[in-house]
């Protein structure tokens, strides 16, 4: 029992992200509506972002901003006192790029709706075959 609890405490965050990722993947594959597919894509993206952020965490460490940097009182900077800044950098840009790609995806959806007057995938395929 204790062994299981230890595993649960140290790995539960990954399981949450895996669950989120699977929800997103299910939305992308199983849903017929284009907007629902985009929402699934965004859930999957969120899972990846959370995964990266949790990789950067360290116990008993603070945010990656050096304390008392310029008032002359800062002591030696040890890596163990600050969490890993690299995943934060990668995800910071990934979030904004996610918004931009979401904009492009919605643009494409608007164009598809103008062309075929529907957003259901099977109906769009039917209308493509008709023409």
């Amino acid at each position, binding site marked *: 029992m204790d062994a299981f609890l230890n*595993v649960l*405490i*140290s*790995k*539960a*965050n*990954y*399981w949450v992200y*895996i*669950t989120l*990722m*699977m929800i997103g*993947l*299910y939305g992308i*594959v*199983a849903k017929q509506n284009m907007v629902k597919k985009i929402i699934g894509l965004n859930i999957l993206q969120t899972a990846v972002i959370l995964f990266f952020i*949790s*990789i*950067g*965490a*360290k*116990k008993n*460490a603070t*945010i*990656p*901003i*050096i*304390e008392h*940097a*310029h008032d002359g009182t800062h002591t030696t*900077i*040890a*890596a*163990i006192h*600050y969490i*890993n*800044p*690299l*995943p*934060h*950098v990668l995800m*910071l*840009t990934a*979030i*904004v*790029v996610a*918004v*931009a*790609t979401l*904009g*492009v995806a*919605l*643009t*494409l959806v*608007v*164009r598809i709706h*103008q062309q075929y007057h529907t957003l259901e995938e099977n109906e769009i395929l039917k209308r493509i075959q008709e023409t």
Partner: protein
Amino acid sequence: MKVGVLVLVIILGSVLIYGSLEFPPWGDPASPASSHLSPYYIEKSLEDTSVPNLVTAVLADYRGYDTMFETIVIFAAGMACIFLLRSSGKEESGTRLYRHIPTGITLRIEKKSAFPEKSEAFERIDSVWVPHDLIVKTTCRLIVPFIQIFGLYVIAHGHHSPGGGFQGGVILGAALILFAISFNLRSAIRRMGERLTLMLSTLGVFIYAGTGVVCMLVGMNYLDYSALAAMLGVDPVTARSHGILVVEIGVGIAVMSVMVTLYYNLASTGKHDEGL
């Protein structure tokens, strides 16, 4: 179909959970991700760049190329949105609705009948019914300048607190989008037109790439901001901190204008006429 996908997703999830048992535990300071490159960033970036916020230092200096191309990706997304959606035609969309401001009466003007566009007593409203909401308009008009000041603070103070070009640019863009939602799309476009947003998004990328070119002209590597030391009259380490500020401003301008461009085109399906 759906049951098959569900089974597949559950199998894949269980495989991933099985794989996660080999991952480092949460918050482990000795995990592989925290033990190779990141200690260098944490321990050396203050003496390399004199920027206390490590995220900003890594973003704009050590990984400057990455951030530059992320900015170009955002710029390209804005361009793609315009190319796909923007319809330049000035064709009239049938009937127009006008509200007589003193009485609140709505007029419907049919196609081909003329109406003075600029009139003090009438304002054009969207064809979907829009109630005249004084509280929302007044609140947003009061709040938008403060949001914009906060966005500028987030850009300018990114060296010492959480923030930077991406976050501040999104806040500035959100302020304009809030204005466009609370009033209407036309009054937002009157204040920040399409031409201006396009020029600003180009200017943002130009500032970032131009900083790199200036460094190259002095004889150093592309985006090596210590080349700016002689120009700014400071020592090379402080020059890197100033160079980071310059490129963050470029990123902020590009992100803000691309957000606004995306909103204008998506809300009006490219007509820039009436939208949310």
